[in-house]
């Protein structure tokens, strides 16, 4: 049992990420959902920094900084702004009851681990087992998008999914090439803005952000 300390930290972060993912899955209040999202970003950037330090890949520092800027400060701020503008602080009702969702989530985690097991063996990085966790958190956020009936939590789930992806990128491989990361970050940012605009448009069109109003287009 002589894993280097940095690796232990990263595994720690991974565990925390997973924990946060579950917390988001079970979270009822929208504000704390956003806070959790910010926290996830924080952990993500931390782990990125650690990986950067342990493998002294300089460009990962940029990536960590980028994450911090975008996912911890900017996006949560925008979200806060939005919900204040749209004054929606109400509880988030889910489609199924929480325990069921948790159970499904558990199953997903097991599945993801099994899936990742053969691959993480061949990972060249110091952090082998994190790939499974990354995949798990991606699937969990997917599940969250499915189970949330309001627009904002769905978007949060979407962003959380991106976090999972980033974690996969940094932990399994030492981060994507810089140009790609920049591009991804740009997309996420623009996407967020567009979503922001959308919330207002949806409000205008349906005077509510409840997705059950948006079921008109279908085959009948």
């Amino acid at each position, binding site marked *: 049992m002589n894993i280097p300390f940095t690796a232990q930290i990263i595994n720690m972060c991974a565990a925390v990420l997973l924990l946060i993912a579950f917390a988001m899955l079970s979270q009822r209040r929208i504000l704390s959902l956003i806070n959790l999202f910010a926290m996830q970003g924080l952990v993500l950037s931390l782990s990125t920094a650690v990986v950067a330090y342990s493998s002294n890949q300089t460009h990962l520092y940029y990536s960590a900084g980028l994450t911090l800027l975008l996912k911890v400060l900017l996006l949560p701020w925008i979200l806060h702004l939005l919900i204040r503008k749209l004054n929606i602080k109400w509880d988030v009702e889910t489609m199924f009851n929480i325990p069921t969702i948790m159970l499904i989530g558990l199953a997903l985690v097991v599945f993801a681990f099994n899936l990742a097991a053969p691959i993480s063996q061949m990972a060249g990085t110091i952090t082998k087992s994190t790939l499974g966790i990354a995949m798990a958190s991606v699937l969990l956020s997917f599940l969250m998008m499915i189970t949330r009936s309001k627009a904002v939590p769905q978007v949060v789930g979407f962003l959380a999914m*991106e976090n999972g*992806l980033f974690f996969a990128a940094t932990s399994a*491989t030492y981060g994507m090439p810089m140009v790609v990361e920049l591009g991804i970050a740009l997309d996420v940012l623009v996407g967020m803005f567009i979503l922001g605009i959308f919330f207002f448009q949806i409000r205008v069109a349906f005077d509510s952000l409840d997705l059950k109003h948006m079921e008109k287009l279908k085959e009948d």
Partner: protein
Amino acid sequence: MEIFWVLGIPLLGGFVMAALGTHRLAPELNSAMSFGTLLAAVGLTVRVISSGSFSVWDEQFFVDAFNVFLVALTAFVGFTSSLFSRPYMRIEQHHGKLSVNMLRLYYSMYQLFSFTMLLALLTNNMGILWVAMEAATLTTVLLVSLYRTPASIEAAWKYFILCGVGLAQALFGTILLYFAAEKILGAGGTALLWTHLNAVKTQLEPTVLSLAFVFLLVGYGTKVGLAPLHNWLPDAHAEGPTPVSAVLSGLLLNVALYAVVRSKVLVDGALGSHFAGNFMMGFGLLSVVMAAFFLTRQKDVKRMFAYSSIEHMGLMTFAFGMGGPVATFAGMLHMTVHSLTKSAIFFAVGHAAQTSGTQLMDGIRGLLKTSPTLGWGLALGTLAILGMPPFGVFTSEFLILTTAMHAYPWTMPFLLTALGVAFAAIFGRVQMMVFGETTGERLPHPPALIPVFVHLILVLLLGLYIPPYLAAWYRQATALIG
């Protein structure tokens, strides 16, 4: 250098139109921009045909026969669509559906959209490919929601969320790809370059790649509109402005399929099996059959043709999945003719809907009486898309079906049923719209029918005669993607 222009003009165009989009001549400017792009694309094509494939800017961009033919196609249809959207948008404005600012947004996004597509096609970097796809989604989301009606917003929202999530999967697939690649190519820039990956594909780790392909297929497949990931497609096509529907069906789906095919090449190379091919065949077949049955009960004309797009994308995916010289050739031919025909149909449909003031097919009658050219355009376009010779769609379907009949006879019942059902569904309704007594009135601006007939004539020519250089070009591409 051509690449610079091909990418630069539309990118610049995006900002120019954002600035001047409210000007009286904005539509003409828009067309001019697209025309410039077309010229640059032609230049690029000529160069590739003459001097083979090449890559520039430390291999970040790469042009071979496969993507240059899509580039040319994209630029061409982009140009004709801009021609069409000139009168169309004016009429919409005249009908009071659009404000000047909306138009500005439209033109600017139109240019940016073609930029993102061209970027996706030209880049050599799988990561940038993903970025471009995502960007294309964002721009089109704004285009789809242009009318700001509840329906269009709903459609745009679904489009955004579904494709966003899908592309997230694709990103994960890309990461896995990188993960597998960096072991052979080492970390850093080159590990995501398709050319390099293609060079070493046999050494890539099979298990990782199979996993990666699943994510890539689900991801880009959502954008291609493969069943059961297609649900965004009909809504987006039906609710967006018609020129957008045209380019969505005609171009964006192609680009997404292009991404899938690129990944398929790598994966099958790595696994040395027909793994990816089988997946694609399965999805393709499923899409064809499901789309056919979706078609049977349509009321909205644009929705109907959106489903027909799903059917045809399924057919192409099936063809590329089968692989082999004939099928791949047919697949690419089908890409070409489908884009041309489907966009032509959408042009005609757009004006048809304007003349009779509704998109519901029960409200559209006797187009041959209202405006014969429009009626014939729709009728012939429909027959072409249904695979009636001598139009080009038949050519590719002929090759696909005969190959499949020999290689995978068990698929025949499905294909036969699907094609028959689709024919009955679409043709029965279009006949109703074209023939009979009319209900429509004349348009405030003369409709743009030149694009329609230009496209149809091209498709007709492709049905009767495939010029040798075009054939050689397809063959090169076929050789590339096997």
